[in-house]
C-alpha cells in the first residue's frame, strides 16, 4: 500500500470512527452520512502524528507518535499517545510489552532535564548552565590532550594517539548523531572509543 494518502487526510476527509464503512458504502445515499454526523470525532483527530521507530531492540518496530501541538508549525508538542504502525512491514502494528509502554519512557520521572555537576568529594548534584558545563568539558579535554597526546612512538613513527580520554557512544542514537560523534571524537586522535556493539 502506498502512503500517498496519509492516515491524517484519510481520517480528516472521510470522517473519523466510521471511515471504513463510509468508504466501503459509497453510493448508498445519505444514511451513512447522517449516522456519521451523530458520532463524535475520533479523539486522535486533534493530534499531530509522527512516524517513528521503537527505541528498544533492533527489530525496529514502526510506531506512530501522537502529540498535542505541532513541531512542524514551530509549536511545542506534548506527546499524548504512542501506538504500533500498521503500515510497517515488520511489526504490522503490533508491539511488545516494552514497545506498548513507550510513553512511560518518554514521560519517565527519571528523564534528565538540566545539566548538573557533582564536584569532587561532594555528595550531591548541582544545577549548572549549558555554557559552563560545555566550557569546562572542552577545557579539560584540551588540557588533557595537550599533555598526553602521543605524537610519535619510540621508533619515531607519527602516531597521534590519545589514550587518556575515552568515549562510549550510544547505539540507540541515530546514524546521523553517530556520524557527527565519529567526526568529533576521531579528529582528536582518541582511540579509547567504543559502543554497545562489543558488549
Amino acid at each position, binding site marked *: 500500500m502506498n502512503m500517498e494518502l496519509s492516515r491524517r487526510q484519510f481520517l480528516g476527509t472521510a470522517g473519523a470512527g466510521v471511515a471504513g464503512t463510509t468508504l466501503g458504502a459509497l453510493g448508498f445515499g445519505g444514511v451513512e452520512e447522517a449516522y456519521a454526523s451523530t458520532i463524535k470525532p475520533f479523539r486522535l483527530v486533534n493530534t499531530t502524528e509522527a512516524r517513528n*521507530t521503537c527505541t528498544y531492540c533492533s527489530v525496529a518496530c514502526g510506531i506512530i507518535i501522537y502529540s498535542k501541538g505541532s513541531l512542524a508549525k514551530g509549536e511545542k508538542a506534548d506527546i499524548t499517545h504512542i501506538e504500533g504502525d500498521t503500515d510497517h512491514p515488520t511489526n504490522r502494528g503490533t508491539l511488545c510489552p516494552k514497545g506498548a509502554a513507550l510513553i512511560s519512557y518518554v514521560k519517565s520521572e527519571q528523564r534528565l532535564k538540566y545539566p548538573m555537576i557533582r564536584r*569532587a568529594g561532594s555528595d550531591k548534584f548541582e544545577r549548572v548552565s*549549558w555554557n559552563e558545563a560545555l566550557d569546562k568539558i572542552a577545557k579539560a579535554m584540551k588540557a588533557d590532550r595537550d599533555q598526553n597526546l602521543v605524537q610519535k612512538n619510540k621508533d619515531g613513527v607519527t602516531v597521534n594517539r*590519545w589514550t*587518556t580520554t575515552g568515549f562510549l557512544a550510544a547505539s540507540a542514537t541515530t546514524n546521523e548523531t553517530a556520524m557527527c560523534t565519529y567526526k568529533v571524537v576521531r579528529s*582528536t586522535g*582518541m582511540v579509547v572509543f567504543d559502543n554497545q556493539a562489543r558488549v
Partner: protein
Amino acid sequence: MTNSWTDIKNADLVVIMGGNAAEAHPCGFKWVTEAKATRGAKLVVVDPRFTRSAAVADYYAPIRQGTDIAFLNGVMNYLIQNDKIQWDYVKAFTNASFVVKEGFTYQDGLFTGYDEQKRDYNRSTWDYEMGPDGYAVVDETLQNPRCVWNLLKQHVSVYTPELVERITGTPKDKFLKVASMMAECSAPNKTMTSMYALGWTQHSKGSQNIRCMAMIQLMLGNIGVRGGGMNALRGHSNIQGLTDLGLMSNLIPGYLTLPTEREADFNAYMSTRGFKPLRPNQMSYWQNYKKFFVSFQKTMWGPAATAENNFAYDWLPKLDVPAYDVLRAFELMDQGKMNIYFCQGFNPLQAFPNKAKLARALGKLKLLVVMDPLETETARFWENHGIYNEANPASIQTEVIQLPTTCFAEDEGSLVNSGRWLQWHWPGGSPPGEAKTDVFIMSQIHLRLKEMYRKDGGAVPEPIVNLTWNYKDPNEPTAEELAKEMNGSVLTDVLDPNDPTKKVLEAGKQLASFGLLRDDGSTAAGCWIYTGCFTEAGNMMARRDNSDPGDTGAYSKWSFSWPANRRIIYNRASCNLDGQPWDDTRKLIWWDGAKWTGFDVPDIAPTAKPRDVGPFIMNPEGVSRLFTRGMMRDGPFPVHYEPFESPVANLIAPKVRGNPVARVFKDDFAQFADTGSKEFPYAATSYRLTEHFHYWTKTNHVNSVLQPEFFVEISPELAKEKGIANAGWVRVWSKRGSVIAKAYVTKRIRPLMVDGKATHIVGIPIHWGFVGAAKKGFPANVLTPFVGDANIETPEYKAFLVNIEPTTGPVA
C-alpha cells in the same frame, strides 16, 4: 543479519540457539510463527533454559552454557558421517577444495604455532598452498588429504554424539534429533535459518560459536537464499548502525580499519589492504579499499586532505594494541591511566562485568561526562546506596557532569535494524526541560576545541582545526545534512576520458552508489556502504512503500537497505552454478542469459557470467570459507573450549583452560574460580526478560510494575538440596561479588548430567540497580568475570560460577 525479519517467513526450519527471540525480540519472532503457520516450518530451540521460545518450539534440547561449539562441531560431524551435505553448493561456493599449507596441524586442543607465554599463535601456517600461477592450489576432486574438506572432516570427527553428551549435558537422543532435523535442510529445496544473539556472542569464544553455525549453513547450502542465512538478532535499536559507522576503537566507517603503528605511512597501510584475488576472475571487492578510504578522509578533512599529504593519513591515530576495547579501558582506568571518560547513552557501571572493579576505576578519573535522556547508575557511582552501592562520596574526587539529552521521540534521523534497513523517523514531541540533542552537544564540544586550538595552538591542532564543518547552523547540524554527508557527494567535476566535454560526475551532486567512489579525492563519502541512502532523488531511507512484488518478503521500496538496497546478501548463491534458482518456489535472483535479474539487487556484477565469478565477492577467493586462514586469533576451525569459570575440565584438551588466546589481565585471573571449584559449584548465566530492556525500563512506571524486583531462577532439585523456598530470599555470590535476590524455583531450569555428574544452573536476569522506578536491586554484573572473546573482547557474561544459599531479606 544476512537476511531480514520479514524473510524468516520463507524458512522450513528455524533454529534458535544463542538467543531467545520470543522474549527478547517478540515482534520479530512473529515471523517464525508466520513460517510455522503458513509453510509448516519447524522451530528448534537449544538453550540452557526452557525459554518462551522453547515453549512454542517443535523440539527443545537443553545444553550447558558455554558448550555450543562441542554441540555444533558434533552436528558437522553428523552431517559428514551421514552424507547430508549440499554437495554442489559446497564444491562450488566454499573453499572445501582449497589445499592447506604443509606444516599446519592440530593437536590436543591447539593449532600449530602456539606460544603459551604470549597467549597467542604464530599463524603463518594457517593458509593455502600457493601455486606457481600466483593463485591458491585447489583439488576439485577433494582427494588431496590436505584440502580443507578432509582437514575439516578429521577435525570434527572427535565430536561424536557420545562426547557431545558428556560435554554439553544434552542427552544423546536429543542431540541426534536436532542434528537430523538440520540435516534435512541439505536438500536444495529446504532451508534453515539461524537466529542468534548475545547467547552466542557473550563468551570467551563467542566469535567461534557463530562461525560454527555459519559453517553448518554453508554445508547445507543455506547462505544467500530466502529463508536461510546467519541472522544476528542484535540488541539496541541502532547497534547495527553504530557498528557500520565504526564507532569502535579500531574502525573507520564501512568496516575499514584504523592504521596500526607498524603502518608508518600510507603505502604501508595500503600494502596489507590490496586484496589481490586468490583465484582467477574473482571480484575481490575490497580491491576498491582505497576509493572508500580516500572518500572517507575527504569527508573528515575536505580540502585539507590532499594527494600531497596522503589524504591526511597522519591525522588518523595509529594503534599500538589491537583495540582499546571497553575491558581495556576500565583496566587502564583502574591503573590510574585515564583522566576523562564520556558515557553517551551508556551505563557501564551496570553493563560491564565485575561492578566492584568498575566503581573503583571510575573513582580514579578526573572527569566523567554523562550524556543521557535518563538517570543512570554510572552518573551516580559515587552516591551511597547501602548494600546496593556502597560508596563514600567524600573520598571520591571524580568530577561528574551530567547532560540531559533528547530521546527517540524528540529527534530525527535513521536507525539500522537487524536486517540492515536504514529507516528514517520524525520527531513527535518537544524535549523536557533544557534537554538537547547529542548532535548539539558534540558540535559544541568540537567548536570550542576548534576555537581554542585556532587561537592558542597546542598539540597537533591540524586534525581538529581542519575538520570539515560546512553546516548551515554550525551549532547544530541537521539530520538531513549529516545523512547527506554519510551518503557522500561529488567534490570536483570528473570528465569523461573519451570525451572531455562530458561530465561523468558533477561537483555538488549526491552520489547514487558506492561504485562511483574514486581514490583521487574527487568524491567524499562518510560511510561507503551507506552510499545510495540519500541521493539526488532524495532521502531513500524515508521511503514508505510497503508493496512486495512476488511476495518474497523483501519490501525493496521500504526504506533503504545497505549495501545498495540489497535485502539478502550473497544472493548469487541462491542459484546453482548455471545461475538458476536452487528452488523454483523461492526465487530471488537468476541469470536470464545476459544478466542477473529478479526480486533483489544482485550481489554480483550484473553481467558476471555464472561459471566465471564466485558469489562471495568480498573474499579474494570468490568462495566462502570453511577454513578461515589466519583471520581469527583462536584458530581456522572452531574448537571446544570451556568457559574460564567451568564446573569441569575440558574433555578434549584437559590442559587448556578457557580459550587459550583470550586476553586476561593479571588481577582478573586471580579473581576466577578454579575449574570444578567446590567453593563455587554452580554454573550461572545472565539474561534479559521480555518486560525489560537492559537498565532503561526500570526507570519506567509500566515496566517496573510488570517486573518490579530482582530475582534469580533455580531448579526444584537445587532448591531442595539447598533448602531454598520459592519466593524466599537467597544470597548468590561469585569470586567477585555478592547479591541478594528473591528465588524463583522453576522447572524451566533443570540440572544437566555433565560427564556423569549432575550440574546445577543458576539463572540471573540483569535488569535492576539503585536508581529508577523499580525496587532497588543488584545488576547481574556484580558477579560476572572480567574477560572477553579472543577476537573482539565481548565479555563472558553467559557462563560463570557461583554459590547460593538461603538468607534473610535485605535491611531496608
